[in-house]
Structures are given as C-alpha cells and as structure tokens.
C-alpha cells in the first residue's frame, strides 16, 4: 500500500467513529439519494424521522441508515436532540455531523469538516456559506440569514457569519453540553448559544449550500426570524 493510500484508509477508519445525524421529515423525493451519498464516506448514519407521512423512513432504512421514529411530528430541533441522545447513549461515536435531509449540503464538505475536527481536536465546527463566494442565495435569503447571524452574535458573543447552517460537527464532549429545548427552527440559535457558554474550541468552515428547486421550497421567511427571537427570550 502506498503512503497516500494508507493515510486515506486511516482517515476512513477515523470517520467510522463519526455518526451523521439527519433530521428527516417528509423528504421521500430525495432522502434515499442523500443517505446513499453520505454512506459513501460515513459508515454510520442515523435518520430521525419526525413523524413523516410519506415513505421517508422506509427509504432511509433501505439506503442503509439507522432510523429512529418519533411517534408524532415534534420539529427539527427535537429530532436533532433525539439523534444526539441516541448517539451518546447507544454508540461509541467520537463525533457527530449534523446534515440536512433535503440534499442542500455536500458530503465532501462534511468529510473535510469531520477530518479537521479529528485532526486538530476542535470541539465544534460550524459550516458557513458566507465565507466564500460559491453559494449564491437570493437577496431575500441573504437578508434573513444575516439577520439571524446578527441576532446570534448579540445573544452569544460568537462571531459567526452563518448562524443557520445545518451542517456542523460536534465532538462527544460538545454533545454533552447541548440540550435542545426549542423543538422548531429556533434550535439553530439555541445550539450556538449553549455551545458558546461551554467555551469549547470552535471554528467556522466554508461550505457550499446547493440551492436546488427542491430545497428552495423549504426555506425560511423573514417573519420567522421574529419567532426565533421570541423563542429565545421566552423559555
């Protein structure tokens, strides 16, 4: 085996200690493809099916994911928390990658982030679409996300450029500091809030978000940032 190959397979072995958590709600159109792609790099994938009414759960399972099923729809934050608790209580994972089910993240970015976390022993890595020019969100989306990032900055003191990116890497230690109580979309700010308090090492990593017609349908509105703000204040 050449040195390059052996270092590659060593990296692959490390990635076996990483679990990918995918919150899943009615994504039957794309979930099989997303899980298969993630599984080309990561052996361990857990989908938390949040009461989907389509065949998402079965498709994810066929594609090789472990599927946990909420008995009813609770929200994306609740799904992530369930995934985290599963990983901590029932696996030996060293790290978790959070990954969106709608196919807007690239597996390559997730691999690079996970390898960076393993190599440099960084506890938390946040994906950001605003660190380079690859991602082209529309003007409206850009405004929504910048407002969210600004709010996160005010509340946590963390200078993040992209507060609502579903692609993150968390070490097992970091998972111990997270307890998401915001079941809906406000969890993205809440997770940053809790991790900022823990004072663990963190980094932002440039990622590309792929805006397909499919993922565009599921974007957030500007008014929803008011909901997020209120969720964070009234708990």
């Amino acid at each position: 085996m050449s040195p390059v190959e052996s270092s590659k397979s060593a990296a692959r072995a490390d990635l076996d200690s990483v679990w990918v958590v995918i919150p899943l709600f009615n994504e039957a159109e794309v979930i099989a493809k997303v899980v298969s792609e993630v599984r080309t790099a990561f052996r361990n994938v857990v989908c938390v099916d949040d009461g989907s009414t389509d065949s998402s759960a079965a498709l994810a399972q066929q594609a090789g994911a472990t599927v946990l099923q909420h008995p009813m729809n609770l929200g994306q934050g609740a799904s992530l928390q369930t995934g985290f608790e599963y990983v901590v209580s029932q696996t030996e994972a060293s790290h978790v990658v959070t990954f969106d089910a709608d196919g807007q993240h690239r597996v390559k970015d997730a691999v690079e982030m996970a390898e960076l976390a393993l190599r440099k022993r960084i506890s938390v890595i946040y994906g950001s679409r605003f660190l380079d020019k690859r991602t082209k969100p529309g003007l409206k989306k850009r405004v929504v996300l910048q407002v969210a990032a600004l709010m996160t900055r005010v509340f946590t003191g963390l200078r993040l450029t992209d507060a609502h990116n579903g692609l993150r890497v968390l070490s097992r230690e970091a998972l111990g500091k997270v307890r998401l109580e915001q079941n809906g979309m406000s969890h993205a700010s809440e997770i940053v809030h809790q991790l900022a308090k823990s004072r663990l090492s963190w980094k932002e990593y440039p990622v590309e978000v792929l805006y397909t017609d499919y993922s565009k349908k599921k974007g957030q509105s500007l008014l929803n940032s008011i909901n997020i703000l209120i969720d964070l204040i009234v708990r």
Partner: protein
Amino acid sequence: MLSQWILVASFIFVGFYLLKARRGANQQAIRRLFIVIALVVGFLAVLFPRYTNVLAGLVGVGRGADLLLYMFVVFGLFYAVYQYRRQLWQEKVNTDLARALTLTQAKLDQALGESKKG
C-alpha cells in the same frame, strides 16, 4: 393618578411572569391568590355596585365600570400569559415522552436484530 401606577405595575408583573415564571409552589400560590381575589372582588362588586364608583374615585378612574374594565383587561392578559407558559411546559413534557419512546424503540429494534443474527 394612582390608577395609572397600579395598571403599569400590573403590566410589568404580567411581563415578568411571561419571561421568568417557573413552575413551582410559589407560582401556584400566586395564581390561586389571584383567583380568590377575583372572586371576592366580583362578589362585592355585584352586591355593592355603588362602591365600585367610590373605589374608582379613590384611585382616580372616572367610573366604577371603567375600573372593572381595567381589571378585566389585566386579569385577561394574565390568564393568556399563564396559558401560554403552561402550553410551553406541556410541549416539553410531550417531547420528552416522545423521545423516550423513540429511544426505547431503537434499543428494542437493536436487541431484536442481534437476537435474530445470533
């Protein structure tokens, strides 16, 4: 005017309750106290309607009917806020329950899978 101070203080109290109330014996005591006071005041207002005018005069509100309206608004707001908090708490309980069920199911599936293999 005295009534303005009382009303402002009431709204601040309701706002504080919205942000800070935690479930506990003290909170329950406050709520029960509110209900008892509301009952007694309502009772007296029905029996002695004239005195609502007197009381209104004392705190600087024009008529007794206005005083009752203000009190109704404060109590109504407090009730809405209380129900909102209760709903948040209920959601949290539901979530914890659903999550426990999900994780138990996962353990069960895994155990069954292993016993099939073995």
